[in-house]
């Protein structure tokens, strides 16, 4: 094939790709009867409306103690579910990792559990759990717990296998028991990673908890939903601002912790 032909073909491919994308986009616009021009023109208006309506007013500030107590509830549920999931996830990872599993048969079930829990989204878990627990704090707690358990198990299996079999072999050779090998060799080697991932999951879960709260009618999410649906935009906006501040604070703290331990 001549270089000429090669580049012509390459250009043709790009053109074709572009045409396909364009027609899919146009097709979607026509089907949904979305008016692009009006949509774009509405953006500045929307901003203006947001600025006017979302500034917390007197009434909103008077509700601050209530908002803070709900925020506290949400943050604590996120921390509790992440921490408990991290501990159990580490245990499950010990069964799943190639170097620490007590028997090869444990590995596949542990990995399967991790995979299922991780791949179902937190909002889907919340919907599923609504059937069992109704609109209560438990639903949110377990939804966050399951996703975190899956995630932590997965990453810790990798961390444990990365640390390698060498120190484990050395401790076996001294006559150490399985429990001693795990607690004296495996856990010290991967504890910093575990803490780092736990902090990451706490950050993620505080964000998710807010959304899950809207579904389950608990915590700060519920409060936002309530104010918003009552056209009480000032208070709803205060909820958003407080949540953002909390997330930033937690992230700063966890970054500081991470710097120290790693």
């Amino acid at each position, binding site marked *: 094939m001549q270089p000429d032909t090669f580049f012509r073909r390459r250009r043709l491919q790009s053109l074709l790709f572009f045409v396909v994308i364009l027609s899919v986009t146009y097709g979607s616009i026509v089907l949904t009867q979305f008016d692009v021009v009006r949509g774009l023109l509405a953006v500045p208006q929307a901003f203006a409306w947001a600025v006017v309506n979302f500034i917390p007013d007197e009434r909103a500030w008077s509700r601050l103690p209530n908002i803070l107590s709900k925020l506290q509830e949400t943050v604590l549920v996120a921390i509790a579910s992440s921490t408990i999931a991290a501990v159990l996830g580490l245990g499950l990872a010990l069964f799943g990792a190639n170097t620490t599993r007590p028997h090869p048969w444990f590995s596949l079930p542990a990995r399967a559990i991790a995979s299922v829990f991780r791949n179902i989204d937190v909002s889907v878990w919340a919907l599923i759990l609504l059937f069992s627990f109704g609109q209560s704090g438990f639903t949110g707690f377990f939804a966050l717990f399951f996703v975190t358990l899956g995630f932590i198990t997965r990453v810790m299996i990798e961390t444990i296998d990365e640390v390698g079999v*060498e*120190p484990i*072999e*050395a*401790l*076996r*050779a*001294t*006559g*150490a*028991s399985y*429990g*001693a*090998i*795990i*607690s*004296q*060799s495996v856990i*010290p*080697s991967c504890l*910093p990673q575990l803490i780092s991932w736990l902090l990451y999951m706490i950050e993620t879960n505080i964000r998710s908890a807010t959304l899950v709260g809207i579904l389950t009618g608990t915590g700060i999410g519920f409060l936002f939903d309530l104010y918003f649906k009552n056209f009480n935009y000032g208070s709803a906006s205060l909820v958003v601002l407080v949540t953002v501040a909390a997330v930033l604070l937690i992230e700063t703290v966890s970054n500081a912790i991470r710097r120290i331990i790693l």
Partner: protein
Amino acid sequence: MSLLELHSVTKRYGAETLALNSITFSVQSGEFVAIIGPSGAGKSTLLRCINRLIDVSEGDILFNGVSVPKLRGKELRHHRTQIGMIFQHYNLVNRLSVLENVLHGRLGYKNTLQGILGLYSEQEKREAVRILETLGLYEQMYKRCDQLSGGQKQRVGIARALVQQPKMLLCDEPIASLDPSSAKVIMDTLREINRTMGITVLVNLHQVDVALHYAERIIGINRGQVIYDGPPHALSNAQIYQIYGSEAGELILDLKERYAA
């Protein structure tokens, strides 16, 4: 009675691979034995069968009069406490301090709870410090192991084995990852331990010159079989060819002559 006796020890991986083929020899208490042979000859497998990190397929191993292949649970752990092991890659827990790594050598003597919590007695800690002192690691005691050089790490490995108060040391290529001067320090240390403490040493080496220099007895292995078992001076050129194959054999003989000269 010999400290260690191997009777027709055979190890198979799957149906085809024969890692050890009917190995028989015995080791007296206090001997310094070097096991030589090319990579993949079965040297590592052989050592790991002795402390049962690997299960043997057939044959019997007697250590101190006790049959090893059938040991289970507590008895197996007791068996392992009597044998210290030193590894090519040191096999330390890098994030922990030197002292903690050395104390790991005591874990075999602990019950489950003590082991999990890492509870060591005052006497054990003093003993660990004393051993570190004799190996010249006193200043490094509280350093993390990932801050040490290769030679220092291997000495930590030796300290961990010694704190077990073993009857025998199994050394799996202890100097393969070290520079020549660190390697000499390690081999001298092993000889010193053998002579002064009377601990039997079984060391896998692929440097024939080092084996000839340090060992009182050479066991040559190829393809899982013992080719030579005797003193270093009686090892003939033909036997080195047999152990290593012809081309490698020539290179090794060259080294041997230069070493002799």
